[in-house]
């Protein structure tokens, strides 16, 4: 019984797709800035063509569900939703923070603080350890906060590895807030689809992959507009202040 899976990530300024073909991984990865709409389809097409695979030969799909750029995440999630529906195949969603953590674990790290620059003076961050199978396992809920408001105090001790563009932008703010030792900081690390494959494989193996209909981005930042009631309150506060 062979297994063929396709994973796609468009959550950040990187754009990547990776194939799992019976134990072998092939990946295409580019740093595309904000041009995912131009690069994603040619990249996926080339990856499949190089592997000699037709989409119909895939057994399942994996989407990076963010957090990251809202629009970027939706391009990859949208493509996977459409493909999975068209192929009638199950899907698994993997977060970009878990992917970053898995990359560091694969390099030998034991505890990882992945952190992505969320723009608007905020960061997405999470804390991950290694489970018995060597997979990234969350130690707390992923969250979005201003870098100066990060609370690392509940994290277990040990040596931590910091990865992601959040560290690239805010290392000077974040580092003093960590009460534990920081082994390394890689502020340029970007998520890669191959690590979504690693994390999704056991889900497919357990038969727990889901329907593409339920595949949903993990935006983390959910307050994106003020309701009429809140607008009114804000106006009242301004005029009285």
């Amino acid at each position: 019984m062979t297994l063929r899976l396709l994973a796609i990530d468009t959550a950040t300024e990187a754009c990547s797709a990776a194939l799992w073909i019976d134990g072998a991984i092939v990946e295409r990865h580019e740093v595309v800035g904000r041009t995912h709409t131009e690069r994603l389809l040619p990249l996926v097409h080339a990856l499949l063509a190089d592997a000699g695979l037709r989409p119909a030969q895939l057994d399942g799909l994996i989407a990076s569900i963010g957090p990251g750029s809202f629009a970027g995440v939706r391009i990859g999630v949208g493509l996977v939703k459409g493909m999975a529906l068209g192929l009638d195949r199950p899907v698994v969603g993997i977060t970009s923070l878990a992917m970053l953590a898995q990359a560091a674990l694969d390099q030998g790290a034991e505890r990882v603080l992945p952190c992505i620059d969320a723009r608007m003076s905020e960061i997405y961050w999470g804390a991950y350890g290694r489970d018995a199978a060597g997979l990234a396992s969350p130690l707390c809920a992923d969250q979005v906060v201003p870098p100066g408001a990060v609370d690392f105090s509940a994290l277990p001790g040990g040596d931590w590895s910091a990865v992601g563009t959040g560290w690239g932008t805010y290392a000077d703010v974040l580092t003093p807030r960590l009460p534990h030792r920081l082994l390394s900081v890689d502020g340029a690390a970007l998520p890669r689809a191959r690590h979504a494959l690693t994390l999704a494989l056991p889900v497919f193996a357990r038969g727990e992959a889901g329907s593409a209909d339920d595949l949903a981005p993990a935006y983390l930042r959910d307050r994106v507009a003020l309701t009429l009631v809140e607008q009114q309150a804000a106006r009242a506060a301004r005029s009285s202040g």
Partner: protein
Amino acid sequence: MPHNSGLMPVLALETSCDETAVAIYDGERGLLSHTLHSQIRLHAQYGGVVPELASRDHVRRVNGLIRIALEQAGLGAADLSGVAYTAGPGLIGALMVGASVAAGLALAQGLPLVAVHHMEGHLLAPMLEPERPVFPFLALLVSGGHTLLVSVEGIGRYRVLGESLDDAVGEAFDKTAKLLGLPYPGGPHLARLAEAGQPGRYRFPRPMTDRPGLDFSFSGLKTAVATALPVDADDQQRADIARSFEDAVTETLAIKCDRALEATGYRGLVVAGGVGANRRLRARLADLATRRGVGLYFPRPEFCTDNAAMIAYAGWARLADARPADGRLFTTARWPLESLQPPGTRAA
């Protein structure tokens, strides 16, 4: 005429604003299915469409609606001949949801992908009805984002004869409704309020009808309403103002249509877009058509507002322009209608 023939079912996604819609059309059997989820209730609490929330809701709804559309049509994804999507104009983030899901569906089945112009969809919506207009015809496109008078000589052969220099008609309805204290989206609420109003109690301008030309301007009307509206207006006064506002708008639109029909000599008038569902506008244009002896074509009200049936028709008619899902995922917030070409002639 479309360059293709036969069944060729095309599935279309419409996600340009605050409706998620899916439909399937083919050349022999016509419209096979159409389904839609409106986000009006989601955006009402914000007083208008929040683009980011619109995009998020499209992601949530789109797969379920595709399944319904396929089921209604009795088709599987493998039975389709193409996938169409609204590529613009519209909210760019919302458009990108439809584009990426459409591309995924097309990629899965090796289907060609058709990028459809939203306003071309509206222009061609009357083709979904049993009584179809014959080219050339005049089209009045009236919605929350557009007010256009278009000469339609064929599919992809459009000339804009007149357009709004400021607010779109639907926008003028919504803003005036807000002045009258009506909830979002105000247009349909204002039309209902106007039903109880006495005509002629207030006299609002018919903007830009006192000079030649086919352009529109509606922002002044809103100001006229604001000036006429008493601070302590009672229900009857508000209804009277709504009625006089609606009369001013619909008479202005009818005057320009009359002029455009006179100038072009066309024998058919198509009215499309969300405001095309307005009853008083329909009645006034019916009078005009009878007086001039021209054919009047309305899509049914549900195909006046945003829908995927019109995108499926336009996508089917443009199968000659379809491309494999291996290139740039095309979406655009702005896309001049006049830049379109007939099917099969678009530059590579």
